[in-house]
């Protein structure tokens, strides 16, 4: 039983580390210094690389959010019930 709990904890830790790495990687590829002074290749003959790269980047951000929703959604928040505040700081 205890080893199962340990394994689950280790699994959660690995998943969290992986997700942090993925988010960091997506953040880093936003800084595309290699495209700074380039115009080509043009997409559809008119979109400069600095523009279509970041349009694709936005789609990557959307995919990242899908991954977070799938693997890191805070399920406990769905069970919240209304309760009046206990303290009065007035």
């Amino acid at each position, binding site marked *: 039983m205890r080893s199962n709990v340990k394994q689950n904890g280790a699994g959660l830790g690995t998943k969290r580390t992986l997700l942090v790495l993925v988010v960091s990687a997506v953040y880093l590829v*936003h800084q595309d210094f290699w495209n700074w002074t380039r115009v080509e290749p043009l997409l559809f003959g008119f979109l*400069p690389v600095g523009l279509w790269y970041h349009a694709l980047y936005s789609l990557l951000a959307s995919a990242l959010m899908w991954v977070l929703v799938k693997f890191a959604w805070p399920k406990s928040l769905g069970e919240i019930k209304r309760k009046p505040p206990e303290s009065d700081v007035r």
Partner: protein
Amino acid sequence: MIPGIIVLVYLAVVAYIGIFASRRGKPSSEDYFVASRSLSQYVFLLALFGTNMTAFAILGSSGVAYHRGIGVFGLMASSSALVIPLTLFFIGTRLWAIGKKFGHMTQVQFFRDRWECSAIGTVIFALTIVMFVPYIIIGVMGGGQTLEAVSATIGPDGEPRAFFSYEMGGALVALVIMSYVFLGGMRGTAWVNAFQTSLFLSFGAAAFFMISRNLGGLDEVIAKLAAEPKTAPLLTRQRIPVEEFLSYTLIPLSSIMFPHMAIMCFTAERVTHFKKTVVLYPICMTLLWLPCVFLGVVAASQFPGLRPGESDDVLLRLLTANTNVWLAGILGAGIMACVMAADSQILAMSTMFTEDVFAHYGGRERFGQQTEVWTGRAFVVGVTVVAYLIALQLKDKASIFELAIRFAFSGFAAMAPVMTAALFWRRSNKWGALAATLWVAATMFGSWYLYSATQEIAPEPGQPFVQIFPALGNLFQRSSTNVLVHGYLPVLPMCLGSALWMIVVSLLTPPPKSATIERYFPT
């Protein structure tokens, strides 16, 4: 005349939607200010996105791209496409949950309860209002300016004539906004925002195709820009320094700290509504910003030589020059949809005054919820009228408010560590929050002062940065548009300092009561 009439019809539809929403209302403050936390999935997504997109997203982004090139998309749009959904995922969902659990409707209510201190809420309230007011004024000004520009036609003498003057247009837009916010509250505002978002998302793409078809091939326009040494840098990021590009990714942290965005997070019926919202948000950003930035660059070949400020209406110029009057009117209505973001800001201001001042100091208990709602409505009228009067008096001083908004964005972004600590760090306390808030206020006004004091030594665009204090080397520099700290935007040290003050001062002072920690972090 025709575009003016189309925009009038659009305003009537918007007013009807907002007023119709009021029929669904219940006589409670929670219903008026956060729509009884009952917004459906797609209304929530569209309203949240529309709330965050102001006149700047359409008109301003094209104007900036006209001078700085295609890099504006990466600088402002794709960074927001990552950072804003992340803040909604991590902060927005938690805000929704604590709102649902404890009945909070504003950030200040949460801060006061979380840190067991009324005063810390009052300090954050004061700073928030100072940073937020210019945003509302510029929203009302934008309504007048855009309606004037959209309704302008070329007269027989070749001079442009506006169907609506700035004063009349501003009054009309303010009146329409005031009526549906007054009657419909959050539900009316959210429905109108959802309608407006659908409109400007579809018309942005339509404008792009119409203009590009009329120009006879965008590849030729791009080739022309690339061949000209003056305009060739617009197709690259040569006019955006690497340090600015990097530090600008912190600016979208401001989004969740803006009161109208945070309050909008309380309105979803279920927390699962955030799932599709965070996935689709980056796509909506691309649909709106990509055509606007690209057309801003295209405008550099069509209308060369415009100065900053003159270039804010390049999109309207492109529309007028490349479409017929009917289409220009319909697309103008789409632009009006974006400009009219002042509605949720006015409602947020009213919510804050009513909840954080009126209700907090005993007004709700003494006078009841109906009076509370009417107080909120009175604030809507008051704020709109005052904003309109300021917009009239300071018509030619819009740049002051635009400047204030730029610094406010850094200020709101630097408050994000305070919110993060409140939600995720048990040990954080009111003293840490106070230290971080004072740091944000001091650095924001300090950078504003440095900016104003160095106007005369500011270099021309494209020229090397100037040292502000030569004895300190490159620590403080002045570019044509910003004060820089070691080449980075002030938002970088502001955010780092805010986080550091929060951590250090919280650790040096007593933790919150265990009962409070248990309420917010149940074991």
